[in-house]
């Protein structure tokens, strides 16, 4: 049972599609319809060509660890019983970077460059987190 104080994304705003696709176990990011740039985090315009036209396109779900940390107290209350846990920045093969966690991997085996693939963890009936596991 997930704690009541688990942080949840807001119900409105640019990020809504990202979280809705995650709920369907799909990793999607915005891709500019004009210049083709993939972007994350979600934004109303393309930072390269300023176009507003964008599609939410599926990602391959593969990438590698760009950087990471192992978290010890103090942490968010919802994560207090999880320490030490990792947070990693994943470089998706499409280009964007994304904050997530690496699962199925002992913290001491985490390293920059580790190839990973997406997996989806249903936190509760509302929230699904796109996380990553080592690609074998």
């Amino acid at each position, binding site marked *: 049972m997930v704690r*009541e*104080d*688990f*942080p*949840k*994304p*807001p119900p409105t*705003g640019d*990020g809504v599609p990202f*979280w809705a696709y995650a709920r369907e176990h799909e990793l999607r990011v915005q891709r500019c319809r004009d210049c083709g740039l993939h972007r*994350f*985090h979600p934004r109303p315009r393309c930072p390269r060509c300023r176009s507003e036209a964008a599609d939410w396109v599926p990602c391959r779900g593969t990438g590698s660890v*760009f*950087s*990471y*940390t*192992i*978290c*010890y*107290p*103090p*942490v*968010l*209350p*919802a*994560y207090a019983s*999880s320490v*030490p*846990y990792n*947070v*990693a*920045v994943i470089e998706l093969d499409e280009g*964007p*970077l*994304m*904050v*997530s*966690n690496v699962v199925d991997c002992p913290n001491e085996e985490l390293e*920059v*460059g580790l190839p990973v693939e997406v997996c989806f963890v249903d*936190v509760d009936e509302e*929230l699904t*987190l796109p*996380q990553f596991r080592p690609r074998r």
Partner: protein
Amino acid sequence: MLAGTPPAREATIVGIGQTAFEKSIDRSELALACDAVLAACDDCGLSVTDVDGVVRYDVEQTTEWDLIYALGVPHLNFFAGTPSGGGGVANTIVLAATAVESGLADHVVVYRARKRGRRSAFGSGPLEGGRPWAKVGTRPSGTQQYHHPFGLASPAQEMAIIARRHMHVYGTKAEHFGLQAVAQRRHAATNPAAIMRNPITLEDWSAARMIADPIRLVDCSLENDGAVALVVTTAERATDLRQPGVRVLAGAMGEHPIHTQLAVFLAETGAYSGRETGGRSIGHRLFGSAGVAPADVDVALIFDHFTMAVPLTLEQYGFCGEGEGGPFIESGATSWPDGRLPVNTHGGSNGEAFIHGVNHLPEAVRQLRGTAANQVPGCRLAFVNGSITDCSGAVLLAR
């Protein structure tokens, strides 16, 4: 600071004031702000009723109105705020200097009051004391929604990820951050105003508990209460006042990517591709406009929310080569008194206090007046910057 300013109007820091720095002070942020502003006016011999301009951080909870109605300041001709958190340190001086050199105001006060100690929260809002990140709640908005659900919330965790990337690209070692922590704690030990008066060794550092690997407790800024204020006026006015003036030789602002959008931050900076961004861009304009080089700087007050920021700042501003920040620290260069560029001689944010970096400014002034606890002999040129992980800026101060 601004090109074409007549010498008589050149921005000059004439007063510095600060409260005691302690883990917990039983006074409000407004009371602390008043204490610091009055101390700064007293330091230079101005009456607080002479103040006609105010500069603060946007996140400062003591507003212009709070301050002037508490102190009986009759009117203001200028007020401004600077965005981000610790990015604003030097920009407060850039704004104040712009005001006095342009003639918009004559006596501008810069202040920052903060209650950040563990028992110091005075409201439920993220900026009302205590740890901002721990008070965001269960519905993080904006880009925090891409951090908090994954357990990434504290600045220490964000900086750890930035530090790890630097270690990967350049071979920087966690011990390099530790050596800076040790140097600053040694500086703090001989600074009577510092909170942490007991020096530590690298062995102590390696035994300190991990907060977010590779960042250890003693690498972190302190959680404390206190306030700092400064008075900026013109060179002409400064000649009538109690203290020798410190000139604002140069100042520059710059957009540095922000740590609360970590993925974008790393996309912009984490490849260390030599892009003209952040401190590199600010530094080129700063040193260029002053006609001096990083090697001319006698003392550097570097924003150090975490000690990992020191080597990265040294690199971005050209005090050493890209990727050489760690070895630069290891060489002893940043240690007072023997280093060639003593950094954070008051003990910095892990030794003296964390007043969101603003306590670095009075230390630069003391070094240039020749009154610092850990005085750099013959100090003539000081560098002070804001955070390299926020909208930022830097100033060069000179005597």
